């Protein structure tokens, strides 16, 4: 099948993965575009049968004007525009497709399905990363709170931890919250000495 596909994705890793997946499935004609200004021109140059784009890119508004470059070709947003469930799936996954040449839905659908699966997997990985990062942040703030307690109240490390845990239980809060509050208080009391902490915000 010689469907020409333009893939617009600012995430090179994901774009590469999708291209690989598509070429393994026999769709070898994939042009990757990173997004940005010359999108309409790129689409005009390649004149693809299908455009797959990351919904997080603002460039989609330029693609709405794709009529201008695609001439008389019909444009169907979301392969299978008559299938709301499929389109909803695509939107939820963060992928959008523009079918430029009016290629048969049967041809286009597996491609978009792959894209949906891939976008979903990447989103999953991203949310796992966020959870991991949040846990790490919490651990870091607890460490800082313990250090504060050990310095200011001359506690040992286990005592400091026990103190935080007791506070958390009494206040019915998470230990990380108690630690964050303590650290914040400490920082606000010592505005000059905390400047070396380099907190990003």
């Amino acid at each position, binding site marked *: 099948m010689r469907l020409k596909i333009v893939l617009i994705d600012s995430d090179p890793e994901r774009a590469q993965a999708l291209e690989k997946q598509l070429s393994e499935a026999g769709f070898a004609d994939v042009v990757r575009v990173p997004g*940005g*200004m*010359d999108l*309409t021109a790129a689409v005009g140059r390649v004149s693809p049968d299908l455009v797959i784009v990351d*919904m*997080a*890119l*603002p*460039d*989609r*508004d*330029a*693609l*709405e*004007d794709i009529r201008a470059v695609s001439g008389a070709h019909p444009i169907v*947003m*979301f392969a299978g*525009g008559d299938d*709301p469930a499929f*389109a*909803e799936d695509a*939107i*939820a996954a963060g992928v*959008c497709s523009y079918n430029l040449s009016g290629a048969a839905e049967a041809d286009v659908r597996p491609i978009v399905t792959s894209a949906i699966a891939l976008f979903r997997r990447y989103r999953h990985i991203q949310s796992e990363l966020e959870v991991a990062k949040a846990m790490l942040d919490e651990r870091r703030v607890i460490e800082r709170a313990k250090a504060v307690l050990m310095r200011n109240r001359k506690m040992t490390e286990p005592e400091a931890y026990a103190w935080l845990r007791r506070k958390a239980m009494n206040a019915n809060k998470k230990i990380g919250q108690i630690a964050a509050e303590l650290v914040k208080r400490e920082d606000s009391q010592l505005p000059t000495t905390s400047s070396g902490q380099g907190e990003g915000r």
Partner: protein
Amino acid sequence: MITLTPAGARNTEDAKMRIGLLRLTDAAPVIVAHEFGFFAEEGVETELVIEPSWANIADKLAYGFLDAAVIIPPLAFAVTLGLRGHTQPLVVPYTISRGGNTVTFSNSLAQEIRAHAVAEDISMAQAFAGVIGARQEQLVLAVVHTYSTHNLLLRYWLATAGLARSPKVTLAVVPPALAVDALQAKRIAGFCAGAPWGEIAERARVGLTVATSQDIWRNAPEKSLALRRSWADAQPDTVQGALRAMLRASQFCDNPANASYTAALLSRRRYVSVDSHAIMSSLPGGSVTSRNQSLFFRGATTFPFRSQARWFLQQMERWELLAPGLDHRALAHSVYRPDIYRAAIAPLGMSLPLHDEKREGGHNSPWTLEGHPDPIAMEPDSFCDGAFFDFE
């Protein structure tokens, strides 16, 4: 957790009103109503969803991922008619803002146009025509979306100088946040976009503003609140509460004394995420020098006049964005819904326009509109070419 939603008013599944918006200054009333708890006080739970593109707003409304959105009115008609994808009937019961757009050109071009305008004592649009008349190359001007107020206003402005269909001017679509970069890289010669992007371009010394909404259609209606019709029909009480909350926020944003509060709120990373001073300049009371200020409340700004819907439809047809021969009156009636606005706002005792339509244009100075119980003080609404539009 305290739930402010009246019991049984809505089932839990659609408990939150999901409102989509872009990173633009004139989304201010929605952000204020959400952050200051005005929605909550009306028993409306809201979730604001910041989208990167109008296309996302349109798709997510079309497929029910959003219940409402800050929208450019021509796009509300495009979604309702299925002109750019899936069809979803929308209603517009509230106008959010007027004005706020700039026509911003690259420094050298803008300086040339300004000098020419002063030397010949002609309008900026005519000066632009003069400047490009002497040049060989084609210029690309960007608008933010095909179905945008910006596209219609820029074309109107170009048309006053005979440039609307000139082969020397090409219109392209570039998202506003990218337009400043595009201008710098000389991929475009200018753009028409909403605040704060013209101001951002000037601050970055990349471009200069040669015209604003004010120079094309004074106090032109700009953003609206659009709701999915099926969602709105299913919960009229929620809709009315939301509109009252919006009105309170619109009043807040329109008050010159509040400009710095609003700007600080909007400048947060979660919202517009730019320097609050760049946001200030287009807020009422935010600047004494800016020619580009949005209005949010005064002069019946928030009322969804059907005559304004008719103007948008007429101009969409003029530029072949709408098939000829459609029944504009019927379309305006089904999408623009002053009846919903009246039902929500009447209990507040505020003066409301007597009629759902008015003459658009023709007022060069403040004027008075028939209202109930009292007449309403209105702002000038003249067009740059002196035209006015009577639709009924």
